[in-house]
C-alpha cells in the first residue's frame, strides 16, 4: 500500500507541477461548457428528417381511433409503438421517448359532436426540437382526417336541422358531394408536459454533461500517456527495480487519474451552478455516484489506451479518434435523440451515453437516486472490464515497456 500511496502522491505532484495540464484539465472544460451552453440554447430549431418515435395508447378502441392509428402507422419518418397508458407516460417521464399520444375514451363521439378531439400529446419539453417536429408531423396527418369527419358531421347536422332532411338523405347527399365541402377547422390535440417541475435548463445540462464527459476522456487519455512518458524517460524501468508489484504501478497511476477526474467533474458542475444557475443540490448522492462512476470508467479507458499503445504518437492518434467518435455518437456533441435510429443504438456502446443520460435523469428528469443506479452500474461494470484488460495488457507488454 505504501508503494501505491507513493506513486499516487508522485503523480499528483507531477500533475500539479504541469501548469499546462492544469489549464487543459480545468480551464478548457469551463470555457467549452460556456460555449456549448450558448450554442445549444440558440440552436433549438430545424431538423434533418430523423426517424421519430412515438408511443401511443388507444383508450377509445373505436373504428375511428383504429383508423387513426393505422394512418399514423403508415407515416414515413415515424416509428409507432402502441402500449398501455401507464407505459406511455413512463416512457416519456424516464426519457425513453420524447412524446406519447393518448387517444382518450370518447374520441369517436367527440368527432361526431364536432367538439374538441379527445387526443392528448404528452411530451418531454427538454426534447423540444424532437417534439416540435413530431407535433408538426402528427398535425399534418391527423388534421385532415379528423377535420373531414368533424366537417361532415357538422354539415349533416345542419342539413337535418335547417333543411329538415332525414339522416339517410343527408348522408347520401354528403357522399355525393365528396369531402371537398367538408373542410372543418383543424382539430388540435391537447398537449401536456410530463414533468411536474423543471428547475434546470435543458441546454445547460446538455452542455455540462456532454462537454464534461468528452473533455474528461481527453484528460484521462493524457494522464494515461504518463505511463508511456515513464517508459520513455526510464522511470518505469526504475520503478520495476523497486520491491513493488507492477500492478501497484498501474493502480497508482489509475488512482491519480481517478482523483483528478473526480476533481475535474466536480469543478465543471460547480461552475455550471455558479455561472449558469444549475440546481446542483437537487440530488447530491446521485450526482456523486454519477461523477464517481464516470470518472472510474474514463480513468480506466485512459489506462487501457496507455497499456495498448506502443508510442506516444500512437496513443494520441488512437485516443483522439476513439474519444471524438464516442463523443459524437454518445451525445456529447449533440443530444442522441436527434440522431438516426442506428446511431442511437450505437450510442449504447459509449461511455458518454450512459454518463450523460445519468446526469439527465438527475437534473432534467428529476428522477430519484434509484434511477441512476442502472447507468452507474453499467459505467462501473465497464470500468471493471477495461481495468482488467489494461492489467492483462500491461503485464503482457511489460518486457516491451522496458
Amino acid at each position: 500500500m505504501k508503494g501505491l500511496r507513493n506513486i499516487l502522491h508522485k503523480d499528483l505532484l507531477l500533475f500539479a507541477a504541469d501548469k499546462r495540464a492544469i489549464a487543459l484539465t480545468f480551464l478548457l472544460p469551463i470555457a467549452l461548457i460556456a460555449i456549448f451552453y450558448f450554442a445549444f440554447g440558440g440552436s433549438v430549431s430545424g431538423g434533418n428528417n430523423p426517424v421519430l418515435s412515438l408511443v401511443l395508447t388507444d383508450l377509445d378502441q373505436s373504428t375511428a381511433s383504429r383508423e387513426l392509428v393505422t394512418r399514423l402507422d403508415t407515416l414515413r419518418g415515424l416509428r409507432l409503438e402502441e402500449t398501455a397508458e401507464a407505459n406511455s407516460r413512463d416512457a416519456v417521464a424516464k426519457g425513453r421517448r420524447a412524446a406519447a399520444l393518448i387517444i382518450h375514451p370518447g374520441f369517436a363521439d367527440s368527432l361526431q359532436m364536432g367538439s374538441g378531439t379527445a387526443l392528448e400529446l404528452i411530451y418531454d419539453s427538454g426534447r423540444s426540437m424532437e417534439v416540435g417536429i413530431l407535433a408538426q408531423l402528427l398535425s399534418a396527418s391527423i388534421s385532415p382526417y379528423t377535420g373531414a369527419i368533424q366537417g361532415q358531421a357538422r354539415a349533416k347536422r345542419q342539413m337535418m336541422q335547417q333543411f329538415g332532411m332525414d339522416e339517410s338523405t343527408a348522408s347520401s347527399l354528403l357522399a355525393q358531394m365528396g369531402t371537398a365541402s367538408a373542410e372543418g377547422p383543424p382539430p388540435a390535440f391537447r398537449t401536456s408536459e410530463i414533468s411536474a417541475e423543471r428547475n434546470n435548463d435543458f441546454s445547460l445540462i446538455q452542455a455540462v454533461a456532454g462537454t464534461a464527459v468528452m473533455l474528461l476522456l481527453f484528460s484521462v487519455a493524457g494522464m494515461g500517456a504518463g505511463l508511456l512518458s515513464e517508459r520513455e524517460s526510464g522511470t518505469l524501468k526504475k520503478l520495476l527495480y523497486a520491491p513493488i508489484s507492477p500492478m501497484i504501478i498501474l493502480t497508482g497511476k489509475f488512482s491519480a487519474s481517478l482523483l483528478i477526474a473526480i476533481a475535474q467533474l466536480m469543478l465543471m458542475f460547480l461552475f455550471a451552478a455558479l455561472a449558469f444557475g444549475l440546481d446542483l443540490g437537487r440530488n447530491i448522492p446521485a450526482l456523486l455516484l454519477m461523477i464517481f462512476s464516470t470518472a472510474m470508467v474514463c480513468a480506466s479507458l485512459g489506462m487501457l489506451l496507455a497499456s495498448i499503445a506502443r508510442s506516444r504518437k500512437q496513443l494520441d492518434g488512437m485516443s483522439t479518434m476513439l474519444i471524438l467518435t464516442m463523443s459524437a455518437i454518445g451525445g456529447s456533441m449533440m443530444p442522441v435523440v436527434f440522431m438516426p435510429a442506428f446511431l442511437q443504438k450505437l450510442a449504447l456502446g459509449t461511455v458518454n451515453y450512459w454518463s450523460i443520460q445519468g446526469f439527465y435523469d438527475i437534473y432534467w428528469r428529476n428522477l430519484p437516486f434509484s434511477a441512476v443506479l442502472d447507468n452507474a452500474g453499467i459505467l462501473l461494470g465497464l470500468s471493471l472490464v477495461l481495468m482488467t484488460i489494461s492489467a492483462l495488457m500491461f503485464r503482457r507488454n511489460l518486457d516491451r515497456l522496458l
Partner: protein
Amino acid sequence: MLQVTALHKAYGPIKAVEGLSLHIAQGECYALLGPNGAGKTTTINVLSGLLKPDSGTLRIAGLDPLTQKRKTQSIIGVVPQEIALYEELSARQNLHFWAGLYGLSKEELKRKTNEALQRIGLLDRADHPMQSFSGGMKRRVNIAAAILHQPRILFMDEPTVGIDPQSRYHIYELIEELHAEGMTILYTTHYMEEAERLCDRIGIMDRGTLIAEGSLRELRAGVSGQSKISVECSAPIGQKAAGQLSLQFAHRIQVEAGSLVLQTDCIQQDISALMQLFAEHQLAIQHLEVSQSDLESVFLELTGRELRD
C-alpha cells in the same frame, strides 16, 4: 555476496548472455567491461529481477532473485543508464519518492534525503526542479536515489554516460567513498579508465560471454608484451650498438619512425639494461617514453577488436 552460475538469456534468436558465471565478494567493487551489446545491461536486468533468465542460478546475499524477487529487490540498489528522474519535481521530491518505495519511515526519509543531498553536494539545490540541473548533477541525484535505502549491493549500469569530465570525476569520488564504506558494487562500463580506477576486479564481457576476469595486474599479465619503451637517440646508432641491442633484446626490439621501440614485461629491468648499453656506446638519449599496457590492449588481444567497435 553475489553468485551467478551458467546464466543464459536470449531475446529470440539473439543470445544476450551465454553461460555467464561470476562471483563478487562482500565489499568488492567489480567491473563488467565490454562494448555496447556485450550483455552487461541484460545481466543487470536479470540480477535485479526485471528479466527472467532462460537458465542459470543466481544468489544475492543468499537470496534467489527468481523465487524471492521482492526480498531481493529490497536489498539491492540500481543506478540505471538513463537519468531516471522526474524532471518536474525537485531533487528532494525525487529522492523522497524513490526511497519511499523501499518502505522508509517519514523520519528516515527526511534524514536520509538530507544526508544524501549533502553527500552529493546538492543540499543547497535540494528544492530546485530537476530540469534546472546540469547533466552531471542529475547523474549524482540518480545515484543518490539508488543508495538512500542502504542496499547491500549496488548495480551501476554505465552511470557516467554522456557527462563532462569534471562531473565524471565527482561521480568517481562518490563511488570510491561508497566502496570505502564497504558497499558491494557491480559496475558496468565501456570506459577503460573507470574500470581501472574504481574496481578491484574486472570481468571482460563480449557477445554475452565473460572472456577474461581478474585484477588489472592479472589481466595485463595474461596478455604478452603489452608495455612499450620508446627511445630516441641524439645520434644514429652504430652497427656495434645495433648488434648488441639485437642480441640482448632479440625480436622484442624494432625501429619505428626513427625510434627504438622495445616491448617489455619488466619495465624497470629493461630500462636499466638499455641505459647501460647506451652508456657503453656513448649514445645520448634525447627522449624516452614508457607506455604501459591498458585494458584496451587487453581487450584487443582477447577479441581481435577494439573496445569501441
